């Protein structure tokens, strides 16, 4: 993304030094907090400020599944809406985070891409067939 802001705080924050210090939970701690949350929440966090906008792009893992995505979005568990939403989220995410490759390309190349160490992919089709890939 276009911003490359460092975490320096503006000088005018001195009048509230304590809360300023607390707001400076550094990236490692923020990632630690994020590690307990499905990635969709991390995506949401990029709107907090310019610093946070760069944070989620360096998140060391991705975790999307239908449950976290649907509960984050408050969607009722109708299979069709879940499928559409999940696809939408993944497509958008991949558009933003990776590039516009086809799913087949990703399946073949993702494991060798960006130092991926663990890939746990489950894709279900409407008639119940399940394709699983673990790398």
């Amino acid at each position: 993304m276009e911003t490359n802001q460092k975490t320096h705080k503006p000088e005018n924050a001195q009048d509230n030094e304590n809360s300023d210090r607390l707001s400076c939970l550094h990236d490692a701690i923020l990632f630690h907090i994020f590690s307990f949350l499905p990635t969709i929440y991390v995506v949401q966090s990029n709107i907090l400020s310019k610093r946070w906008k760069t944070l989620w792009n360096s998140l060391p893992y991705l975790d999307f599944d239908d449950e976290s995505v649907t509960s984050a979005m408050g969607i009722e568990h109708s299979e069709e809406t879940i499928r559409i939403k999940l696809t939408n989220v993944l497509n958008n995410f991949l558009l933003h985070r990776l590039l516009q490759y086809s799913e087949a390309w990703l399946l073949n190349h993702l494991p060798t891409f960006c130092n991926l160490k663990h890939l746990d992919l489950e894709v279900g089709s409407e008639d119940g067939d399940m394709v699983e890939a673990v790398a």
Partner: protein
Amino acid sequence: MSSSIASSSSSSSSSSKKEKKISLKTSDGEVFEVEEPVAMQLEIVRSFFADNEDVTEQTVMPLPNVSTAAMHGILEYCRAHEEFRRRMPEAAPEEEVRAFEAGYVDRKSNEELKEMILAANYLNISKLLDFLTGVAAKRIENKSVEYVRAFFGVENDFTPEEEANLRREYEWAFEGVDED
């Protein structure tokens, strides 16, 4: 590991025998006398005493990044876990631990929680850090941008226009967020 007084006392009423204490000084100058096994849960303290042969029982270790308030919280947690460990050295009583942790964290405000996360990180108490960051995660889960900003004390440095654009761009990630 400092081994001068290995296991201070195995009896449950432990205060009868003199227990080795470690003196820790917080950022605002208060000195805490902490039982050795409790203090040794603080990795920064453990390595300080392991790496410095010339420290004595009188040595007061300064902890300039830890406030007195945070220290009280830290010690309450570490003492409770030391107590669990003493009673059940093989396996912690999970139900009890969970009950303690739930009550413990219920009493903490968001500010206190963040202060303690910083302290636990600095003191390098991985168990406590894991626990507290997990609690922080629960507190921000499904909350609005404004709530999370307030939680972390983040200053919004986007122009209204930039923010509106971002919200449009990431609309797909924002359905179903709770009202505060």
